[in-house]
């Protein structure tokens, strides 16, 4: 038993932190936030590829470093902490994991090397409107290898080259890989609560779609991809939430009211203690999820759901109370609190709302109870 990262993994994490402190300060995030025409930080994306991050968990035979998911978790925490405005989650947690999970040998050989090299940006296109997609509600359909329908919101939809799309074929839900630069695809940028990340609507009118995984397995595979992504996003969320706590602590130590630091008042001290509590609970659940993901353990669905629920809760509390701790100045455009508050919302929805994960968690417990 060992409930911590190894020294090598910690070293990778520390290096990533130093790199991102240098290459991804808040001004880089704002450069995307303040400029709607910029969808992501291309330079940082290239640098991430050069660091080997994109291929960290891709097997060596497919051009990756062949490290484990634990290394990916360590990187995710740092990317979340730095609010990296790049399509890392869409490309790695969604697309690469989908191909690793369900891709044929041909598909792996074709796409994974490009992903590792930073030549391919991914996206997951499952949602078609308010609420979760269901077998009954799913409209997008594939007939004769051609996809028709609309998907929104699609994170990184403006910049992705290859999307994993949930659609029906012969009335059966399936996953499909769709090249977004081919004919029959149109994109429209969407305005969201977190303009530091890109979101689009994709409309397909006879776009070429190749099946990913078996016919009829669409929702099952989607859920397995989401389980994997939930753990990885949980680390991004824990990274962000921890940064919020640090910001709050630094401010509470330096800001004075009534002649003493605001961090000497219990209202602030206990608020920060609660942040710490939630962050620790989220971190511990994320570690368990990381173990389950890395080990391919049957506990993954439960562990992933718990990691996601705890991470969403912690980041929400930390990002909103970070603003509150800063007082008025924390609510201004210039101060960075808002960046975390917005990203907290983005991460809470990108892999499905926590509400749905709570339901999934309890369903898993029921199954376990019965078994």
């Amino acid at each position: 038993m060992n409930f911590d990262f190894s020294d090598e993994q910690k070293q990778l994490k520390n290096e990533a932190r130093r790199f991102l402190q240098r290459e991804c300060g808040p001004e880089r995030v704002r450069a995307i936030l303040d400029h709607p025409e910029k969808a992501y930080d291309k330079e940082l994306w290239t640098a991430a590829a050069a660091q080997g991050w994109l291929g960290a968990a891709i097997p060596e035979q497919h051009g990756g470093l062949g490290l484990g998911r634990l290394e990916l978790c360590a990187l995710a925490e740092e990317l979340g902490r730095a609010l990296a405005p790049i399509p890392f989650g869409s490309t790695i947690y969604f697309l690469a994991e989908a191909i690793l999970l369900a891709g044929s040998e041909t598909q792996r050989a074709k796409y994974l090397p490009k992903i590792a090299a930073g030549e391919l940006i991914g996206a997951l296109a499952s949602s078609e409107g308010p609420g979760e997609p269901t077998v009954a509600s799913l409209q997008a359909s594939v007939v004769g290898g051609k996809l028709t329908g609309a998907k929104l919101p699609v994170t990184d939809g403006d910049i992705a080259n290859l999307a994993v799309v949930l659609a029906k074929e012969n009335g059966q839900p399936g996953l499909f890989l769709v090249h977004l630069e081919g004919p029959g695809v149109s994109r429209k940028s969407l305005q969201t609560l977190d303009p530091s990340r890109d979101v689009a609507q994709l409309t397909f009118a006879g776009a070429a779609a190749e099946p990913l995984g078996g016919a009829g397995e669409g929702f099952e595979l989607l859920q397995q991809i989401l389980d994997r992504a939930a753990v990885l996003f949980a680390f991004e969320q824990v990274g962000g939430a921890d940064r919020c706590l640090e910001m709050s602590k630094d401010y509470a130590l330096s800001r004075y009211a009534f002649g003493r630091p605001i961090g000497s008042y219990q209202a602030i001290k206990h608020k920060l203690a609660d942040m710490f509590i939630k962050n620790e609970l989220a971190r511990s659940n994320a570690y368990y999820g990381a173990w389950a993901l890395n080990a391919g353990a049957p506990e993954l669905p439960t562990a992933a759901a718990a990691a996601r629920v705890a991470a969403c809760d912690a980041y929400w509390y930390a990002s909103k109370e970070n603003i509150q701790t800063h007082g008025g100045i924390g609510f201004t455009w210039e101060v960075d609190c808002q960046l975390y508050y917005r990203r907290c919302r983005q991460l809470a929805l990108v892999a499905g709302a926590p509400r749905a994960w709570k339901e999934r968690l309890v369903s898993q417990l029921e199954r376990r109870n019965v078994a």
Partner: protein
Amino acid sequence: MDFTDTPEEAAYREKARAWLIANAPKQGLKPGRDHDGSDLAEARAWQTKKAAAGYAQITWPKEWGGPGGTPIQSVIYAQEEAKFAVNSGYFLIGLGMCIPTVMAFADEETKKRFVGPALRGEEIWCQLFSEPSGGSDAAAARTRAVRDGDEWVINGQKIWTSGAHLSDYGILLARTDIDVPKHKGMTMFWIDMRSPGVEIRPIHQMSGASGFNEVFFTDMRIKDSQRLGPVGDGWKVAIVTLMNERLSVGDIRGLDPAQFLRLAREVTIGGESAARNHAFREKIADWYVQFEGLKHTRMRTITSLSRGQTPGPENSIGKVVAANVAQEMAREAMEMLDQFGIINDPSLAPLAAGFQNQVLATPGNRIAGGTDEIMRNIIAERVLGLPGDVRLDKDVAFKDIPSWR
């Protein structure tokens, strides 16, 4: 106890409603007005009309241009006016806080000069108390006023000044003595916001709005006759201003639990209407009970007022409860929509992205006008009589109090 109108109240309501129907503009203003000044001309015209008809500052005596009405009449009028698309927000701070301070501390001539124009919406006022280093501690003002013969020279900076960019006048709390403890070295003045030496910069908020400002003073000169109250008594005057703030009975802004329920009816979760989901239903009930509780608490306050009693700081509960419920409700609404909830394009998101905008606006509501923490302090100390915090800044000369690490 009676939550319905008496015959007199019903008659007043009928009269007010008839007047509103006849006089309120037919075209609605845009919803969620953020006092950006775009509708200022219409708002002024409306205020003038209201004042002439005796519907502005209904409880003010005839002497000052009001109709000498009751607090209940004031509430009835506000309830009816709320059904029309008119905006009286620009004048709230002036009429609710600044002018009452002027009335209490200025000489007769000054009062005569300012009360009428403010009432009619011709002149707008702002309140210049908060400072960057002060935050929740309004008595930490560092803006200096130095006497020079019959004048004062002002240097320093105010912040969070609501509506300063649209204001003609303001009341200014300035430090006139740094060698005495902080509460004793301040003095209050009224100032002309267009004087030389005043610079106003809007504050860009994270929600995108910019109704607050920073105001910089560089060698601004004012006359000693602009002083409100004795030299060194500024904090006592400020307390009168802030008491008036507390008396002004505000409404809860933003979307309410009924609108959340309406949204839930439009969203399907797992093949079933979200409105059937008991997790949402319990939360709606919890929020509704809090909103209703606030509404009835305000009514209890008004009953006190109408009986000639001074309501206590019980009203402080309103902001804490409303802002926190609004924030959680908005988060739940976003999450109800699943991935789609992140979209805040008003043409796509339900209720014109009302809940998404509320997610962005509510952190400010928990801070502006007193943070949650300060409001709880106020309740604990002024309502419950618990001891104040240990103060390290009380008997120390202002210049010796640490302000930043």
